[in-house]
C-alpha cells in the first residue's frame, strides 16, 4: 500500500506503545454486531498503469473539446486556458494546503484570495467580493437569501431569462424558508418585460433577479430594471453566467446593482463536465456583514508588517452555528486561484481583446443566421436560433462533422422545442462557424 509509510515492524512497535496486540483491538469500541464481517465488494488494488489505461478508455467514450468544436454554452463555456494556470495550481503549496485558518503559515493562499476579491470587484464594478461560493446556481440562492435577510421581506421576482438550472437551485434553497418566488416574463426582444416588472414589483419584495447576458444570450435592460427595483426598496440581484462578457460590457456595479452573483467558470476553469466551477459573489460595501462565505481582509502582524487573515468570521457557521449567514464551509479555493491567475494573465488589455473576439465571432454567425434568430435584442456570444427540425437531430448530424451543436431549448422551454441556443467563443474557427450557419439555415439537414 504505497500511500502508507509505516513498516510492519514499526506497526508492531506502535501497537505495543499503544497497549494493544492487534490493530483490530483499536476498533473494540464498535459493538461486535456492527463490525463488518465480509470483504468489501470493491476491486483489489490496481496498478498505476492499469488505472491510466482504464481512465483513458473511459475518456474515449466521451466527446471532448480536444477533438470537437463546441457551439454549446448555456452556462459552461469553452474558452482559452493559458498554460500558466496549470503550472501555478499544480504547486503542492497551493493545492495540498487547507483553508487558511492559521494565517502565519497561509499567507500565499490569503494574499492570492485578497487579489481574487479585488479582481472580482474590478470585473463586476462592485465594492466587496467574497472568497467564492460553489457555483453560479448556489451563488444565486445565497444572493437571494442575503437580500431577504437584509430587507426582511419575503417576496422575490426572478426573471424567466435567468439560467433555468440556477433557478432550480434557488427553488431548492428557498423551499422551506417562507420565501415566495415569482416569475418575471420576457418580451419578444428577449429582454425582461419592464412593464411587467413595474406592475409586479412592490414594497413587499426583497429582491428582483435578472441576468445579463441572459440565458438566451440577450443583453438585458439592466439599468432600467435596477431603477424599478430600488424604487420600492428592494435589492437588485444581477446574475452573470458568462464572466468574459464583463471584459467589454458595462458591469452591473456601474449600473447600480446591489448584489452580483455568477459563475466564474469562463475564467480559466475547464468545462470538466460541469464542475468544479466557481461561484462569484459581490455586493455593495454596506451589505458586507450580511455576506455568506469566507472573506479575506488586510491587517498587520505584531511587528507592524502587512498581512492577510480570514475576517468578519462572526457571520460564519463555525462561530455562529444556527445564526450564521450561510451554512457554507468549504468553498472553491483552488478554482478562485485559477481565476486569479487567468485574470492576471489576460490583464486589462487581454480581457478586452478576448471579449471582443467573442463578440465579433458571434456577430459573424449572427449575420449569417439572419431571419432564423428568435430574439431581436443585442447579444454577446450566445443567441437563439429557430431550426427547421428537431435541434437534437441536427446535433446528431453535426457530431459526424466534428461539431457539438447548441443546446436544444425544449429541454427547459417545452414551447420552444425547435429552437437552439448557440454559443460562439474565441475557440471557434471561421470555417466551422460558417458550416454551422449553413447547417442551421438549410431545410432538413438530416435527409
Amino acid at each position, binding site marked *: 500500500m504505497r500511500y*502508507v509509510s*509505516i513498516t510492519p515492524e514499526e506497526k508492531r512497535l506502535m501497537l505495543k*506503545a499503544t497497549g494493544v496486540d492487534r*490493530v483490530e483491538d*483499536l476498533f473494540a*469500541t*464498535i*459493538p461486535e454486531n*456492527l463490525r463488518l464481517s465480509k470483504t*468489501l465488494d470493491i476491486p483489489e488494488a490496481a496498478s498505476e498503469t492499469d*488505472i491510466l489505461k482504464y*481512465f483513458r478508455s*473511459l475518456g*474515449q467514450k*466521451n*466527446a471532448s473539446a480536444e477533438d470537437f468544436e463546441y457551439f454549446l454554452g448555456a452556462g*459552461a463555456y469553452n474558452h482559452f486556458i493559458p498554460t500558466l494556470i496549470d503550472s*501555478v495550481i499544480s*504547486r*503542492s503549496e497551493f*493545492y*495540498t494546503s487547507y483553508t487558511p485558518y492559521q494565517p*502565519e*503559515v*497561509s*499567507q*500565499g*493562499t490569503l494574499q492570492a484570495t485578497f*487579489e481574487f*476579491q*479585488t479582481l472580482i470587484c*474590478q470585473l463586476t464594478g462592485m465594492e466587496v467580493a467574497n472568497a467564492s461560493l*460553489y*457555483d453560479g446556481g448556489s451563488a444565486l440562492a445565497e444572493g437571494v437569501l442575503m437580500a431577504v435577510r437584509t430587507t426582511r421581506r419575503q417576496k422575490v421576482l426572478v426573471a424567466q431569462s435567468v439560467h433555468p438550472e*440556477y433557478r*432550480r437551485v434557488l427553488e431548492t434553497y428557498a423551499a*422551506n424558508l417562507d420565501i415566495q418566488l415569482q416569475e418575471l416574463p420576457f418580451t419578444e426582444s428577449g429582454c425582461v418585460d419592464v412593464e411587467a416588472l413595474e406592475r409586479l414589483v412592490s414594497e413587499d419584495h426583497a429582491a428582483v433577479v435578472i441576468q445579463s447576458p441572459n440565458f438566451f444570450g440577450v*443583453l438585458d435592460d439592466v439599468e432600467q430594471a435596477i431603477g424599478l427595483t430600488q424604487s420600492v426598496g428592494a435589492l437588485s440581484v444581477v446574475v452573470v453566467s458568462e464572466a468574459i462578457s464583463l471584459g467589454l460590457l*458595462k458591469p452591473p456595479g*456601474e449600473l447600480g446593482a446591489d448584489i452580483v452573483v455568477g459563475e466564474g467558470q469562463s475564467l480559466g476553469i475547464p468545462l470538466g463536465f*460541469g*464542475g468544479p*466551477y466557481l461561484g462569484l459573489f459581490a455586493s455593495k460595501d454596506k451589505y458586507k456583514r450580511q455576506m455568506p462565505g469566507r472573506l479575506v481582509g488586510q491587517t498587520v502582524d505584531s*511587528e507592524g*508588517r502587512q498581512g492577510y487573515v480570514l*475576517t468578519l468570521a462572526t457571520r*460564519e*457557521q463555525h462561530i455562529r452555528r*444556527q*445564526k450564521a449567514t450561510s451554512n457554507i*464551509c*468549504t*468553498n*472553491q479555493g*483552488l478554482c478562485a*486561484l485559477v481565476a486569479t491567475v487567468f*485574470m492576471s494573465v489576460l490583464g*486589462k488589455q*487581454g480581457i478586452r481583446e478576448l471579449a471582443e473576439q467573442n463578440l465579433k465571432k458571434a456577430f459573424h454567425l449572427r449575420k449569417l443566421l439572419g431571419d432564423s434568430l428568435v430574439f431581436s435584442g443585442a447579444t454577446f456570444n450566445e443567441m437563439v436560433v429557430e431550426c427547421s427540425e428537431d435541434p437534437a437531430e441536427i446535433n446528431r448530424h453535426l457530431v459526424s462533422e466534428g461539431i457539438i451543436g447548441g*443546446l436544444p431549448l425544449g429541454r427547459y422551454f417545452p414551447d420552444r422545442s425547435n429552437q437552439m441556443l448557440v454559443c460562439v467563443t474565441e475557440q471557434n474557427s471561421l470555417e466551422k462557424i460558417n458550416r454551422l450557419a449553413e447547417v442551421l439555415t438549410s431545410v432538413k439537414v438530416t435527409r
Partner: protein
Amino acid sequence: MTRTSVTSILNEPLIFERSAPGKSAYTLPRLDVEDVPVEEILDSKYLRTEVRGFPEVSEVELIRHFTRLSTWNYHIDLGMYPLGSCTMKYNPKLNERVARIPSIALTHPLQEEQQSQGSLEILFRLQECLKELTAMDAVSLQPAGGAQAELIGILMIRAHLTQKGSPRRFVLIPDSAHGTNPASAVLAGYEVISIPSDKKGRIDVKVMAEKMSEEVACLMLTNPNTMGIFETHIEEIAQIVHLKGGLIYMDGANFNALMGYARPGEMGIDVLHLNLHKTFSTPHGGGGPGSGPVVCKEHLAPYLPVPQIEQEGGLYRLNSDKPESVGRVHSFHGNFGMAVRALCYILSCGREGLKELSEMAVLSANYIRRQLEEHYDLPYDTDILHEVVFSDKKQHKNGVTTQDIAKRLIDYGFHPPTTYFPLIVQGALMIEPTESHSKEELDAFIDAMIAISREAEEDPEKILSAPATAKLTRLDEVRAARSAILRWEP
C-alpha cells in the same frame, strides 16, 4: 528587492502593484472573422471603457509572483498537517494526472448522453463504490461540499416526513457537532435542539431520549464524533429516534475511521454524507473545491437531487423525471473533477488498501494519544478511533493557551491541529494525523508537542511570542475585522 532567505522571498507585493502599462502575459489567435468595430455591433450604452484596475504584468513576473506567494503556505507535501476533523491526508499525484486527461476534463455538462458515456460511467461507478462502503442504497454526487450535502440530506428527510403527514419542527444536534450541522438544519426550515454530551464524550442518550418527540424530524450525528469517539449506543439511539418516527442523519466527515470496519447502513442511519476531500483524498486546494456525496437508504431515494444516473442496457443515462426529488443544489452534476479523483483513489487502494488506511489512521491517532496523554490534559478518557482531543488545561496555569501551543508548533515545522473545537472542550486541541505519516514523522510531532509542554513550564515567553520562524508573527485579527479592508485600492 531584499533577499530574506535563500529559498523564499518575503516581500512580494500585490499583483496590482507589479502592474505597468505595456506589460503583457497573454497571446490570442488572430481574429479570423471580419473585424467589425465593436461600436457597430453594440450600442455604446452597453459598453465599458476598460476594466479599471486590472493588472498588466509579464509572464515571468506573473510566475514569480505566484511562486513566491506559494512558498508562504504550509502544505501536506511539506509535512504533517494534523487538523482534526479535516482529514488532511496525502493527495496522490496519480489522481491529478487522471483528472487532467483531456477527454475527461474537457467535456460539457449539457452535451448529449451518448457523447458523455465515459463521464457518466465514472460517476456511476463511484456511486456503486460509495454504496458498498456505507451499506446504503442510493447516492447523489451533486452536493459541492459537506454543508450543501447536509442541506440536501435534511431536505430529503423533510420531504419524506411531509409525505407521511408533517415535516415536524426540530432537529436534534449534539453539542459536539460541526457548526455546519445547525446552520444547515436552519436553512432547511428547522429549529435546533442541542443535546449535551455525557461524561464519556458521547451523546447523552438519556437527555436525547427525553428531547425526542413526534415534533422532532431527525437527529444529526457524527460518528465517530468530533472527539474521535465511536457512538457505541448508536443502535439504541437509532431505535429511540425511529420509534418516534424520526430519522437519523450522519455527518460522515469522520468516515476515514471506519472503512472496511463498519458501515453506517448497518447502524440504523437513514442518510449520510461523505466528504471526498477528506476520506477520499481529493485535495483541499486552500479551501476547496470539495465534494459531498449524499448516500441514503431506499425509503429516502425518491427525494435525492435530480438528475439521477441510471444504467440501462449497458448505457448510462441521466434521469430527471423524479417528481418527489427535493430538486437541485448544483447548476450541473456537482464537482465532477473531484469524483474522478475519488474513484481513482478507491481503485488505487482497493478493498484491502482502504481498510488498511483506516487501520493506520486509527493506529496513528492512538499512538499520539498514548505518547502525549501525560503531557496534555485529556478531557475524556474514552477510547478513540481516528482523532484525539486534548486541552490546554495543564499549560494554562502558566499562561499558555491552545492558541499559543498551536503557534509554537509552527516553529517546530508542523501545521497546528484544529483549535478550540469541539466547543465542549475548553481550549481544545484536536489532532487527526491520518494514515499518511511515517513513524518518524509522528515521533517528531510527538517530540515537538512534548517540548512545547516543557517550554510552557520553563520558558513560556518563547511560546507566547511564537511563531518566530513564519513569514509573519501573529496577525491582528481584531484590526482586520474593524477596518474590514477586503480589496486593494490604488
